[in-house]
């Protein structure tokens, strides 16, 4: 029993973080409804929403002192954000093993797993990956095809070109002209990268064991 426990808690880094320990201590007398409210608020916060109102109303309507509530919320936050959601999906039993070690009632574990494995999971992952370091991504891409009919040097030019406008996730804004030849080059390169990505996703390098 103890060896399987050791394996199950390994994903938390070997030692149970103090926030989670204090959460389990403070979960006494907490009813399911309150727990669910708090859990919902924490998930919302991880997705980037503002949940001060929900938390405030939960704190006001319950008999549990605010200090204990804050321990619970901190523990939930830690469990859900650090818990390597991807890993958890591969070792479902961990959460149940968890309940023996940190003494969270089994009902509460069910609630946790419904968050971790439910459809909020994708949104959580997307939100957390946004905060990690990355180069700006393309938020908006607008384009225009122009044909210049005549210029000061040519009465009849009839030359097409593409005007591109890119808004990036870091707020920067780029508007530039793309000559037709460069556009072809861009298109070719993007297709090439897509092909490489497809190959990469199929190759055995992805079968690296976790």
């Amino acid at each position, binding site marked *: 029993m103890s060896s399987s426990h050791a394996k199950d808690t390994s994903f938390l880094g070997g030692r149970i973080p103090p926030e989670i320990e204090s959460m389990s201590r403070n979960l006494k007398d907490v009813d399911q409804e309150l727990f669910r409210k708090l859990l919902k608020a924490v998930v919302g916060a991880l997705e980037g929403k503002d949940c001060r109102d929900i938390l405030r109303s939960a704190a006001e309507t319950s008999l549990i002192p605010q200090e204990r509530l804050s321990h619970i919320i901190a523990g939930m936050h830690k469990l859900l954000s650090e818990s390597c959601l991807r890993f958890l999906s591969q070792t479902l039993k961990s959460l149940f093993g968890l309940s023996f070690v940190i003494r969270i009632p089994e009902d509460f574990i069910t609630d946790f797993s419904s968050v971790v494995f439910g459809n909020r999971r994708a949104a959580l992952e997307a939100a957390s990956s946004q905060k990690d*370091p990355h*180069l700006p991504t393309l938020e908006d891409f607008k384009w225009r095809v122009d044909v210049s009919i005549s210029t000061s040097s040519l*009465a009849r030019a009839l030359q097409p070109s593409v005007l591109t406008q890119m808004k990036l996730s870091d707020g920067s804004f*780029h508007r530039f002209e793309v000559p037709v030849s460069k556009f072809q080059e*861009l*298109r070719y390169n993007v297709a090439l990268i897509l092909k490489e990505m497809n190959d990469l*996703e199929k190759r055995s390098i992805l079968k690296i064991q976790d």
Partner: protein
Amino acid sequence: MTSVIKETQSIKEAVIYINAIDVNKFSRLISRIIQKLHLKEERTFSEEEEQKLQAALSLDKHALNLVLETSAFILEQAVYHNIKPASLQQQLEVIHLNPEKAEVFSQTWATAGPELVEKLKRNIFAPKKLEHVGWQLNLQMAQSSQARLKAPSAVLQLGIRSEDSEAPENVFVEFNHQQLLEFYNKLEIVQGQLDSLT
């Protein structure tokens, strides 16, 4: 076709000078001018070269300038209206350029003209132009919020040159698979538009 070269006073003056120049020297001069015609800011001849020309063609500074400017003007008009070499020759004879000089113009125009038109067509006017496309494909293994990722991500480097700056500005954009696919689909739509033009 109406004449593209009106016989103004300065044209008349220039014609007199041009007619006096040796035809071989003149031929080389015109070839050089047409080669540099597409470069807006550059002078065709450096100070030194102009001085040598003055000596070689026995023209003073004012006369040489007039000859160079008029020759360039004639060629620019030819490009602008895209007139045929024969038509150019005819029009030059109308303004009293002697036949051998007119022939020099139309010969040079016939050989170097089409290339010049192509170059000018490609000279698009824009404050910023895409000059260079580079890319890098990475496999992201982990990040601070998630371990064990294995997510491919591509970084596109766009070298954008501004009209007024020396060095191009590099814009880096990151894409995951889905984002890159969406981007590619948009590029395909643009391509469809370009295709419908031809």
